[in-house]
């Protein structure tokens, strides 16, 4: 029984760097040379049978996977040795060595070629040298040779080394004292003691990752030279040393591991910062392990040494935009009808004086339990319970226990559904430091009744020229929850939820358990989908609104709610297979103005050719236009860009521009970025990356390609 492929992807990474669990080595079958016949051709031959054969003019010898050609050659039968001279050429498994003089023992694969030029089929590697000595079928030693993956006689880049040992068995090439030339200019040299290794095939392999040179307003010129250790098919380690002009040497390390039942990744950066005279660091560690098939232990730890670390050292908004670093460790049990988890979660706040952030509550620990079954004598039941100890240095601290059983009687038919549901929300608080006059114990029980109902209509319709099934799905959702006075209840994990299509069909308008909104309301919505004949959803339009029959008393900010909620409109569609449109709008009924809206258009006429235009609006929070894209502007040239312009305070919040030049055997990437890190300061800079195919492969971590991918949806690496 073929189980689904056991391949745990630790985190989204470029495909070739995905760790594989199976670590069995596939044994290469040694193609024995002796057992195959040998065919010799030449214009003139002489010699002694079974001892020696002299061959002249148009000589060609083939045996097994070996094929020689030369002007002149002598074959010694007993020693199984072939000496050849004059335009000598040896081909083996696609690799090709040519030179002036050659000696080769066919049986062992040992021998040498004088001033050879060579070509390796696996990764298009080639070069010339004074001499190449074959130790056996897999190992060869090159003296004073060059190596490059560029075609042609004068390659754009090549590595010249006084000694190079190639091992096609281990897929490694190791160069001794070597100099790297790019367009004829020596750009890097390695001393003889640091042997410089490079992969001979595309497979994952220890070696240098493309160096990056850059500059940022936070640290001046930067030079990064990551090195990748392929420890095992399911373990690897990357070293990111980065020299930052004004701050010093930053050492970054990242280890990844993956086993049958566990997987994880830990990254640490440390620097002795010359500017601040302090040691600054940042760490992130993710681990997930299933102790038994149902029990999973996991952690997600993040730490930064000081508030400005990301802003000073990172060149992408994915790091600087998040001021809260989660520290979470926990145990989850997944049973068949129930699951439970014991977690402890807290946050490190990267404080910003200009817009202070309150420290979130720490939940040390939180025990939660969830069980449920469906269709038990026609009933669905579920219970949600949790016990949490909320801790905070200044705000009220305490324990909270919640139990929330729910029972529903679903009538589901293809054409309609009616789901009456009764739920009961019981909470009890135990406050450690109540304010004067406030009770230290609070209980609250709130019953709630809701009915969800809907009809599903269908008809054949055609849109933009193709036949589809159009659905019309009206839906009514009534909720009745009595009022409970909760104004002196603490606010641990509750806030007003976003008003969206997921929320308008849930009972409580608040998230978390500290506030149960009183409600006597009905939500009406209608959804229409256009579904292609293969079942794919091509278009979807939705319209929804909530009607309140009472004025809601439970609120966080004291504003009483109007009789009708905001109106929700949403539409998504694949206009053609290259044009995709999305729109979502929340219109307030009181002032007919939009409270929140997102519009997005994506045009992707071809892979690696994409343009996104997005408009995001949140009343009093943000009003932004974003244009991002990747476009091939000329042969081998790709332009990449993103600009996030805030219309509210008319300044560019985030900008990113770059180009990629892709030659056949190397690629140059330039990315400049500028984004705000606090009200007053921003992080701007650029980085250049030179990728030499086959010599140093694209890694991950802080290289520009990675930031492009995260910032431009739909971006595809061009190599």
């Amino acid at each position, binding site marked *: 029984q073929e189980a689904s492929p056991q391949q745990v992807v630790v985190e989204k990474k470029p495909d070739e760097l995905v760790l594989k669990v199976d670590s069995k080595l596939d044994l290469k079958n040694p193609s024995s040379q*002796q057992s195959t016949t040998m065919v010799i051709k030449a214009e003139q*031959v002489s010699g*002694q*049978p079974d001892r020696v054969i002299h061959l002249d003019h*148009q000589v060609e010898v083939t045996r097994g996977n070996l094929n020689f050609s030369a002007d002149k050659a002598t074959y010694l*039968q007993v020693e199984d040795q072939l000496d050849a001279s004059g335009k000598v050429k040896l081909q083996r498994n696609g690799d090709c060595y040519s030179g002036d003089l050659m000696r080769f023992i066919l049986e062992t694969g040992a021998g040498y070629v004088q001033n050879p030029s060579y070509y390796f089929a696996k990764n298009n590697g080639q070069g010339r040298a004074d001499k190449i000595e074959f130790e056996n079928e897999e190992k060869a030693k090159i003296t004073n040779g060059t190596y490059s993956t560029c075609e042609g006689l004068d390659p754009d880049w090549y590595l010249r080394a006084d000694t190079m040992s190639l091992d096609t068995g281990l897929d490694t090439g190791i160069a001794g004292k070597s100099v790297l030339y790019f367009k004829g200019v020596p750009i890097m040299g390695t001393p003889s003691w640091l042997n410089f290794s490079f992969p001979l095939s595309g497979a994952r392999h220890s070696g240098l990752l493309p160096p990056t040179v850059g500059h940022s307003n936070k640290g001046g010129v930067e030079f990064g030279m990551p090195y990748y250790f392929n420890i095992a098919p399911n373990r690897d380690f990357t070293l990111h040393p980065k020299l930052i002009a004004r701050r010093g040497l930053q050492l970054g390390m990242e280890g990844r591991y993956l086993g049958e039942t566990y997987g994880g990744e830990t990254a640490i950066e440390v620097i002795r910062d010359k500017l601040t005279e302090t040691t600054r660091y940042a760490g992130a560690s993710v681990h997930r392990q299933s102790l038994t098939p149902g029990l999973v232990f996991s952690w997600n730890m993040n730490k930064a040494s000081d508030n400005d670390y990301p802003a000073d050292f990172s060149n992408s908004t994915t790091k600087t935009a998040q001021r809260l670093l989660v520290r979470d460790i926990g145990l989850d049990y997944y049973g068949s009808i129930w699951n439970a988890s014991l977690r402890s979660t807290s946050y490190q706040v990267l404080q910003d004086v200009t817009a202070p952030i309150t420290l979130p509550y720490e939940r040390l620990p939180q025990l939660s339990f969830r069980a449920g079954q469906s269709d038990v004598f026609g009933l669905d039941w579920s219970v949600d319970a949790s016990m949490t100890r909320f801790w905070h240095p200044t705000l009220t601290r305490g324990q909270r226990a919640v139990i929330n059983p729910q029972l529903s009687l679903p009538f589901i038919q293809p054409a309609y559904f009616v789901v009456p549901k009764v739920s009961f929300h019981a909470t009890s608080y135990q406050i450690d430091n109540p304010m004067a006059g406030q009770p230290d114990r609070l209980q609250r029980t709130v019953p709630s009744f809701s009915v969800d109902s809907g009809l599903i209509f269908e008809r054949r319709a055609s849109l933009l020229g193709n036949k589809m099934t159009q659905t019309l799905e009206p839906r009514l959702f009534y909720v009745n929850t009595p009022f409970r006075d909760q104004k002196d209840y603490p606010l641990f994990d509750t806030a007003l939820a976003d008003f969206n299509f997921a929320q308008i069909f849930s009972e409580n308008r608040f998230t978390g358990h500290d506030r149960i909104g009183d409600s006597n309301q009905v939500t009406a919505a209608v959804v229409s989908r256009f579904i292609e004949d293969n079942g794919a959803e091509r278009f979807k339009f939705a319209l929804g609104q909530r009607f309140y029959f009472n004025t809601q008393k439970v609120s966080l900010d004291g504003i009483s709610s109007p009789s009708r909620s905001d109106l929700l409109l949403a539409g998504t569609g694949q206009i053609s297979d290259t044009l995709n449109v999305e729109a979502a709008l929340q219109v307030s009924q009181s002032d007919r103005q939009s409270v929140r809206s997102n519009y997005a258009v994506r045009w992707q006429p071809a892979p690696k050719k994409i343009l996104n235009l997005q408009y995001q609006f949140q009343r009093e929070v943000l009003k932004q236009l974003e244009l991002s894209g990747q476009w091939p502007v000329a042969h081998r040239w790709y332009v990449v860009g993103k600009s996030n312009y805030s219309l509210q305070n008319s300044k560019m919040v985030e900008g990113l521009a770059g180009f990629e030049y892709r030659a056949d055997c190397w690629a140059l990437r330039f990315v400049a970025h500028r984004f705000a890190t606090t009200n007053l300061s921003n992080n701007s800079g650029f980085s250049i990356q030179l990728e030499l195919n086959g010599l140093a492969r694209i890694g991950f971590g802080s290289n520009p390609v990675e930031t492009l991918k995260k910032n431009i949806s739909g971006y595809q690496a061009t190599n």
Partner: protein
Amino acid sequence: EKADSQKRTNISAEYTEFDGKTNTKTLKGKVELTRGTLLIRAENGVETETPDGGGAVTLSGHAGSQVFFRQKRDGGEDLWIEGLADRVEYDKKTEVVRFISKAQVRYLSQQKVTQEQNGEFLSYDSVNDVFTATNSTSGKRVPGGGRVTITSEPKGKKSDAKPDNK
């Protein structure tokens, strides 16, 4: 093999004709030349005699059948050489055999072919166990005139040959 040098060469044919002036003998029909282990069969042949006891025999087949050659070789147990060609020249003094035009020579060890040579001109000197091959019937190499092909079986095969009782 070397022992053949001491043996007498005798030639038989259905019809022979001797020309005293040129001292040549012409043979026709089932010509057969033997000398110790050496054996050559052909359709017709011409034998010349030289005063110092040397001389050469030229044998040729006719349409459809080539000249056949066979001789034992020194340097190992049960080593033989066999050959076919449109025309064969045998020099009685130097004991060099020349196979001319569409020539094929096979070296056998215990009835197994260890090496096979194909070409326009092949020669074998049984005294010194030396062979040559070129791409033109003249025996001289013609640049670009096609190539000789030699196919040799891997030598490791001896062990599995059945020791047949000689």
